[in-house]
């Protein structure tokens, strides 16, 4: 996603060019508005938030309120730690599995590698509901309901196909000659990976890891099904700030902002590479 613009509209006039630039600004402002407004509301007090006015000034009051939760409810610290552990551990395992698999699919290709690749991606077409009951029944049997482990296992399965596709496409770009030279020198497989392939594919692998982190951080369906007890994650914490009594809009806005900020910052930093990952390497 370079900053260059193609000369799409041939012979377009100057006024029209400024007009289209202005239109882009309007569209950008409209699209960010719901979130920007939420971030803004998080600094108001509850009265102002409800009336959508601003009479009482702005403060960080709501942020300290949501981070000091009352006993008996899920606290920010607990949810954040759970999310962090689950997301990091699952992503590390995904990478540990995806890198060797991508090696076998891209560099020293196994026979029928295209079918294997299809198989991996086809598991993403399998609706979640098709496998959730046996997982639930067995998780119950093995006392895994409400643990971090069960979510780690599920997030590995959720992200692995995508990670393999992405890593493979980044490995495909490592120049053949370098690998062949290493082979002639008698470099072992592990050292080939460590010294030649991984350094070159590192930015791609980082983008892969980031995407896995984002998907796992935002995941809600499995979390609510299998994890309503002790290992609740951030989406559940945000929803916990919706109350049926009293005013909560400003507090909810603060909670939403806290929950999304890590992923938004990461996404902004990596936006140029992310598209490669999301299009599964099919688009360069």
């Amino acid at each position, binding site marked *: 996603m370079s900053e260059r613009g193609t000369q799409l509209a041939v012979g377009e006039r100057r006024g029209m060019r400024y007009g289209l630039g202005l239109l882009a600004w309007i569209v950008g402002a409209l699209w960010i508005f719901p979130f920007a407004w939420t971030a803004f509301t998080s600094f108001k007090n509850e009265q102002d938030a409800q009336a959508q006015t601003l009479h009482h000034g702005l403060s960080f009051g709501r942020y300290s309120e949501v981070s000091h939760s009352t006993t008996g409810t899920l606290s920010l610290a607990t949810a954040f730690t759970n999310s962090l552990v689950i997301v990091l551990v699952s992503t590390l395992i995904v990478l540990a599995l995806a890198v060797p698999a991508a090696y076998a699919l891209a560099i020293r290709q196994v026979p029928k590698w295209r079918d*294997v690749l299809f198989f991996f991606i086809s598991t993403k077409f399998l*609706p979640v509901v*098709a496998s959730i009951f046996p997982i639930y029944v067995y998780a119950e049997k093995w006392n895994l309901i409400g643990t971090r482990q069960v979510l780690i296992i599920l997030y590995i399965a959720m992200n692995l196909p995508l990670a393999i596709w992405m890593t493979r496409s980044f490995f495909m770009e490592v120049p053949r000659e370098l690998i062949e030279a290493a082979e002639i020198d008698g470099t072992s497989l592990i050292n080939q990976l460590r010294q030649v392939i991984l350094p070159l594919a590192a930015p791609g692998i980082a983008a892969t890891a980031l995407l896995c982190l984002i998907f796992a951080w935002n995941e809600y369906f499995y979390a609510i099904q299998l994890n309503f007890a002790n290992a609740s994650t951030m989406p559940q914490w945000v929803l916990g700030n919706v109350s049926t009594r009293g005013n909560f809009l400003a507090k909810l806005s603060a909670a939403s902002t806290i929950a999304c900020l890590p992923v938004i910052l990461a996404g902004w930093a990596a936006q140029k590479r992310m598209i490669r990952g999301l299009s599964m390497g099919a688009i360069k």
Partner: protein
Amino acid sequence: MEAADATLIRAGAKGRVGDPFSSPWRRRLPLLPALVVVIAITQLPFLVSIYYSFTNLKDKTQSLIPEPTKFVGFDNYKQIFSDPFFRQAMWTSVKMTVLAVVLSLVFGTLFAMLLDRKFFGQGLIRTLLITPFLLMPVVAALIWKQQMFSSLFGILNKVLTFLGLSSVAFISDHPLGSIVTVLVWQWTPFMMLIMLAGLQSQPADILEAAEVDGASAFGVFRQLTLPHLRRYLELGALLGSIYIIQAFDAVDVMTGGGPGSTNVPYFVYDESIGGGFRYGSASAYAIVVVIASIIIATFSLRVLSGLLKDEDRA
């Protein structure tokens, strides 16, 4: 999906002939851990689901009088086709997915064309536009429900009242439209990024040649850009459908499965873990969903296969 399975088994069978440590097997070794994990966590439970769908399995802890699980043949499947609520959920799923995918593709393409030209603040606007895609789906749904659509304190109704119009109960009167709005808001940036990649991969020399030949802007778009973008449109539609057809978060948060907004994932959830705890019949619903997905997947994999072949040629 099954075709891929079958060829995989065939590929495995061929390798087994002869010495297990022969070179093809050493090559496959790095692939095995990933393959085993994916099969164990996604394929095995699916097989168990098929078995459940022929039983009357219920959650023992959730029923007052636990009855023994027994084999009921095709009873669960017969029940599906006489269940008007399931048919309704199927129809809702189709409407939700098609509307969200088509609208976000249209908006995404338009936004990509706006961004694909130099203007002041290009990078900033792109950054702002992709942000909704990064949000937690739960938060995105909450933002629209509480801040935008709410009839008590929503901005939209404040604006309508200010303009002297009567307020609208968006979520209760238009549940499907409200959910689709959130989905389109989140998925337009994704489509935009794909289309932007497509626009920027256009060979500049051909566009210049068209300019020299005096082609009109619209003519260039219709005859050069649009055919070039076809592949990217297909990819966007395919990836969008995979994710949007499984939309659960937005439905759960916005309406909690109210009338007209229960899609298939929410329906199956409601039938089982969400309160029904009838795993046997819920599995049968799930299997029907899988069959529908296989039909979509067969078509989609063909698109992907086309993309891979292009990569080979390059």
